[in-house]
């Protein structure tokens, strides 16, 4: 988004309105990632707030040359959520082992709203799964290929093929959008 640049300059100058606008644009996308990772609404909301506090305080660290705002924010959110999950897992394991089984159950029962949407749904299931693991679960490639029980090379090509298909569907969507706009005229 072009006006992100302006918003980010304002954010770096401690403009609260800029933060508010960036929140409105991206909180949904980031919350989608955090909630899919930690699967707990209350914790996810805390982590979301925490992420935006960091964005507010560390805005000067963001370098637009290196990438988009969303990528930067996504990394902050992912790191915070992974840290949180590691900590809570440690707590569960050291304090009360019986809770662990409950957590497993929680993992199995996934609420409907956590299901993936958009063009992702058009992908083959194993491609969907690969994308979900690395983008929405915060797993590294090395962790994810073990999770899917395929070799790392195979996993990497899953990701590549999935992204290529996504790319094609986004292009198609743009074409459909252009046709649609043409029709309206």
């Amino acid at each position: 988004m072009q006006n992100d640049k302006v918003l980010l300059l304002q954010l770096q100058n401690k403009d609260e309105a800029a933060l508010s606008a960036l929140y409105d644009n991206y909180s949904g996308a980031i919350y989608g990632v955090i909630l899919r990772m930690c699967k707990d609404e209350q914790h996810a909301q805390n982590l979301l707030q925490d992420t935006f506090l960091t964005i507010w305080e560390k805005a000067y660290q963001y370098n637009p040359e290196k990438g988009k705002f969303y990528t930067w924010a996504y990394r902050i959110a992912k790191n915070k959520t992974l840290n949180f999950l590691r900590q809570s897992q440690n707590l569960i394991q050291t304090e009360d082992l019986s809770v662990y089984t409950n957590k497993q159950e929680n993992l199995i029962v996934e609420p409907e709203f956590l299901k993936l949407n958009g063009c992702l749904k058009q992908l083959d299931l194993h491609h969907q799964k690969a994308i979900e693991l690395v983008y929405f679960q915060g797993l590294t490639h090395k962790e994810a290929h073990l999770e899917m029980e395929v070799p790392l090379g195979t996993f990497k090509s899953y990701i590549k093929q999935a992204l290529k298909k996504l790319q094609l569907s986004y292009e198609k969507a743009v074409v459909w959008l252009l046709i649609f706009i043409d029709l309206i005229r």
Partner: protein
Amino acid sequence: MIDKVYILKNGLLEQYLLGELSPNEELQVELVLNMDSDLKIELETLEANFEKMALENAIIPPKKAKVELIQKIKSNQPKIIPIQKNNFYKTYLFAVSSIAACLLIGSIFMFNQLNNSKKQLQVAEDQKELLKRDIEGLKTNLEYTSRYFEIINSPETKQYILTGNTLAPTAKIVSYVNHKNKSVIINTKQLPKLDKDHDYQMWADVNGEMINMGVIDKENQLLAMQYVDAAESLNITIEPAGGNDHPTVSRLLTNVYLN
């Protein structure tokens, strides 16, 4: 060595985007990206798709999350640490400078005190010196007085009173003559004052010749005069200041015969 082929083959762009790479790998990927615009475009496409995918899968958080966030930012705002630090430094500086100022003022005060004490000590020293001299003077006086007293009180001492003639009717001099000790002491208490150009001088008459017994000191009431053997009478004349070789008979004031 990380190059374009390696990056594409190993899916490093995807991992770079997700922040999975180590800082070192990240740096190397960035180096290649800066030199290769094709790769850069590839990454930008990936990034754009990544964002689209995320937006498609957005879950809208409850409104209260945003309200709380804005509140947190607002409540955090006044607590900016540098201001506290500043305040801390200001207080610290203020305290230090106060102490320094106190020390400086204290030092000046002490220095003045020291100077005053030194001056007072000097004054005390001077006074001590003066007192010492006074005591010495008094001692000398006492010695003289004691000696005069001894002579005056001696049973061998004879007392003669010289009364003034018409030149000085009020004049009255008491003289003590001790022939054994050969000493003469006179009391000039009732001798009229003279101007500074004139002095009283005392003479002894020996066989018609006037022998000088000395000029009478204007300052002292009691004084010793020169003893002259075989003196027949004591005489006092008024002479020019400092005394004369021969008495001015016309200005004879008083005389007494010794028997």
